[in-house]
């Protein structure tokens, strides 16, 4: 077990007042709150912060923690002193936020899992029968899955309180039909697949937040899908038909003559097939062949001669 330096986590001095600790907590909580923060390690930092605050905001726990002395370094191998816990009587801190099962072994050993309220008060404890908690997970799917309504296998890991009262990691595999037309950021609700209820309480629901796996060619915005399509200069100038791969299969796309880079061609209702289907936009991107042989250089020179073209006319140069 590793020693945790709660003062360092909160960025306060060991002699900080309770007010200073509270202010530091609020400030860091705003910075790392997973609902607000875009920091990559926000969730881990927030949990660590919650644990540190749980101890330091409570004068009893703080005094006990301070009693360990200052000789410990963060991360150092730690064993509680033999007389630990004698003479301290902890009252529940009333801290309901960070789930106690997320706290570290270090916290556990010092204050016990029950330190945030009786051992079984995890779920309000108001009645003996209670509906299980709703659970949340993210799933990464391919854009094509949202088009076809495919079935995907999802493996979820979650923590459940085992028969011994300690949390255990449970893994389960579900077969989930991806609803056709689902979009990034939406949630698939699976009724009755959340945490088990207490007593006769029914199971909670499971919510899967949908995220599209980043794709080389497709970009999604709301219901609309964008594809960048490289075209040859002559295809753009003369027009023509190009086979384009879309999430729902290949289509023959007609390129109008005299198209330029950035031109958007709309394929109506070929975006994500939601209730209000999105459109598919093909964005043309003129690709230039390299002039790497004498013949190709000559072709470019002929090209220049045939056109008296000033590409910068628009910008007055």
């Amino acid at each position, binding site marked *: 077990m590793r020693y945790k330096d709660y003062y360092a986590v909160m960025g306060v001095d060991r002699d900080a007042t309770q007010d200073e600790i509270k202010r530091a907590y*609020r400030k860091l*909580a*705003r910075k790392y*709150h997973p*609902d*607000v923060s875009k920091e990559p390690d926000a969730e881990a930092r*927030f949990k660590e912060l*919650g644990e540190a605050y749980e101890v330091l905001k409570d004068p009893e726990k703080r005094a006990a923690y301070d009693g360990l002395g200052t000789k410990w370094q963060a991360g150092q191998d730690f064993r509680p002193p033999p007389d630990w816990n004698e003479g301290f009587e902890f009252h529940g801190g009333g801290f*309901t*936020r960070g789930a106690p099962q997320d706290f570290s072994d270090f916290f556990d050993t010092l204050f016990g899992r029950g330190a945030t309220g009786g051992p079984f008060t995890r779920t*309000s404890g108001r009645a003996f029968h209670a*509906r299980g908690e*709703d659970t949340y997970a993210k799933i990464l799917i391919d854009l094509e899955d949202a088009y076809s309504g495919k*079935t995907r*296998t999802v493996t979820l890991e979650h923590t459940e309180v085992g028969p011994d009262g300690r949390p*255990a*990691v*449970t*893994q*389960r*595999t*579900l*077969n*989930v*039909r991806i*609803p056709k*037309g*689902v979009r990034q*950021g*939406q*949630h*698939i*609700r*699976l009724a009755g*697949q959340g945490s088990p209820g207490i007593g006769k309480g029914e199971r909670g*629901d499971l*919510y*899967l937040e949908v995220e599209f796996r980043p794709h080389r060619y497709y*970009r999604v*915005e*709301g219901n609309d899908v*964008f594809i960048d399509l490289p075209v040859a200069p002559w295809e753009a100038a003369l027009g023509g038909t190009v086979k384009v791969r879309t999430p729902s299969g290949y289509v023959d796309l007609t390129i109008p003559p005299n198209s330029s880079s950035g031109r958007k061609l709309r394929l109506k209702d070929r975006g994500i097939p*939601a*209730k209000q289907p999105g459109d598919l936009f093909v964005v043309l991107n003129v690709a230039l062949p390299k002039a790497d042989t004498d013949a190709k250089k000559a072709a470019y020179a002929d090209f220049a001669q045939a056109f008296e073209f000033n590409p910068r006319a628009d910008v007055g140069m």
Partner: protein
Amino acid sequence: MTSRDTRKTTLVGTILEEEVVLSLGEVCRASRLSAERVIELAEEGVIEPIGRNPASWRFRGVSLRRIRCAQRLEQDLGLNTAGVALVLDLLEELEELRTRLGRIEA
């Protein structure tokens, strides 16, 4: 680690944001909050009911997500309900702007 395999059956879900419509009672059950609290959240604009009075209120599925987020923000950041409603609106706006920015930078 224990493992429970429910692979035999295929679960069919619904899209919370589009297909799910909930009554006040259903919102209370799903979020495990009292009706008074849910009504307060509606009054402060955290969630937007459709309908005239609480008995006939209907909520879009996305309300559950906003409630969950609101509860966390209130507890963790010491905000009041009106403050949370503002934060949620700003977060949505921020999300929209980030999406647009992503498109421009792509």
